[in-house]
């Protein structure tokens, strides 16, 4: 076996490990400044994709609900023609809402995952790496975004099979991807913020259930804001999901939308989410 020049070893070590360990005595060169954040985001996203590759069960089971929404709710309400959609079939109107919903459902349970990782010691270990808390949370938020994006592709394909007329313009699809990732980043941070407050999985599970439906029904995912009662319109106005759906609808279907406002709200919401979740992360480490 070759001898590593950088690592003089006693004979006892050679007997157990006739391997080269030269790199394990040289610390890697540290990234500094702005380069840390993207590197950590890439690391967290890579983990998420690797997990999805090993176990695709969740991808399939999570496709069931959006498929049912589109197939049953969508098809039925297309026939009833009860909801003013501005001239497009209700199924088409619904599809962006369901994409946003399935992305939100994934993200909103990310807090449970971070509590699980805390209990398992995975989070503890990540917190002892040269990763500022905000970078760790941003990484997790984008990882949720990547996972939601994979899910969104599945929903888009289902919608396409059901005959929804969507754009295939790559630039618009890129916009869709950005909207999905930003929305998921916000909702996962919301969830991780609550995780930092309630600290246990059971409580978070209950709260997650309690807030997902109001967020969903209190948005324009199923019906336009105009048909809502005044108080619900107010809820929808402060609900980032509405802005995400508006952006998705505008990009995918070409309906009138407010893209600059939508993306501004989503970006600000995601940034606020990262800030609040990372300031509470210390409570989970304790």
């Amino acid at each position, binding site marked *: 076996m070759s001898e590593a020049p950088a*690592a003089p*070893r*006693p004979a*006892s*070590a050679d007997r*157990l*490990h006739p*391997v*080269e*360990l*030269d*790199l*394990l*005595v*040289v*610390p*890697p*060169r*540290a*990234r500094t400044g702005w380069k*840390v954040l993207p*590197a*950590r985001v*890439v*690391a967290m996203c*890579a*983990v998420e994709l*690797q*997990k999805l590759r*090993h*176990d695709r069960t969740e991808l399939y089971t999570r496709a069931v609900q959006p498929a049912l929404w589109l197939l049953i709710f969508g098809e039925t309400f297309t026939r009833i023609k009860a909801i003013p959609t501005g001239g497009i079939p209700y199924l088409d109107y619904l599809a962006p809402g369901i994409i946003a919903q399935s992305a939100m459902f994934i993200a909103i349970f990310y807090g449970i995952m971070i509590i699980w990782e805390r*209990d*398992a*010691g*995975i989070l*503890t*270990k*990540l*917190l*002892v*790496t*040269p*990763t*500022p808390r905000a970078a760790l949370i941003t990484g997790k938020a984008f990882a949720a975004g990547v996972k939601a994006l994979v899910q969104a592709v599945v929903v888009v394909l289902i919608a396409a099979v059901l005959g929804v007329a969507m754009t295939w313009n790559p630039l618009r699809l890129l916009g869709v991807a950005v909207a999905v990732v930003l929305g998921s980043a916000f909702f996962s941070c919301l969830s991780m913020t609550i995780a930092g407050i309630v600290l246990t999985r059971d409580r978070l599970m209950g709260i997650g259930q309690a807030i997902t439906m109001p967020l969903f029904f209190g948005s324009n995912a199923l019906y336009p804001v105009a048909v809502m009662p005044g108080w619900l319109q107010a809820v929808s106005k402060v609900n980032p999901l509405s802005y995400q759906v508006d952006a998705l609808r505008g990009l995918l279907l070409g309906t009138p939308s407010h893209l600059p406002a939508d993306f501004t709200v989503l970006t600000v919401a995601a940034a606020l989410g990262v800030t609040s979740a990372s300031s509470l992360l*210390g409570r989970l*480490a*304790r």
Partner: protein
Amino acid sequence: MTRNATDDGAPGGDAVTCTGLAYSFGETKAVDGLDLGVRDGEVFGLLGPNGAGKTTAIRCITTLLPVPAGMVGVFGHDAARERMAVRRLLGYVPQQLSADSGLTGRENVALFARVFDVSRRERARRVEQALAAVDLTAAADRLANTYSGGMVRRLELAQALVSAPRLLILDEPTIGLDPIARTNVWEHINAVRAATGMTVLVTTHYMDEADQYCDRVALMHHGRVRALGTPEELRSGLRDRLGTEGPLPTLEDVFRDVAGSGLDDQSGDFRDVRSTRRTASRVG
């Protein structure tokens, strides 16, 4: 395995210094005025029963718990003021089995290569070496949830090693392992230590392990260090003090001696230590 004494000629100051370290959870003083100096290159054991404050002390040193400036230093860096610098020097294996079961062994190690800024060019080779150092090359591409307890511990060791830490911190590394796996984990810790010269700070409540593998130990009780020295020093010190003939007292005897009456109200913990010790000594 031979136990390596501290490398002569290469002691560059202390690896870890704790000065009056104190940490409370509400009313409970988990660590209560801990003074500690871990020398560069040694294997240092922090011993004590459950609840002695070992894990809390470790969590302060690893920057997980916030401490005031001036209390904890790692190779001269203050744990309060230079958190990132401290973390770059650390390899940390917490008490729980902390590898991600949804990833392969290689992916688990690669994650830690990434978060410690290992360049893409070097990553594959470095990960390979870390896995080889703990004999997991053959199992590297299996999911971690197929690993045995001992293999998971070795994987966590590889995760900690991939960043070439100068200080390896192991919190109860052999807890819950069968005796053969325990020996195996220690052999890997020692081999890596011998190969890299890194400092090892380990907590355990297995006195026999400390006796066998640690250069120096500190006995902790009620948040403070009650005795400090090499296992031999502590054991022969007790014999001299008692003036008895016959076999050298064990570290456990030393511990009972220094903890004194304080152990009475914690007898459950002590019995726990004693029974685990018996299990371990059966294998030798």
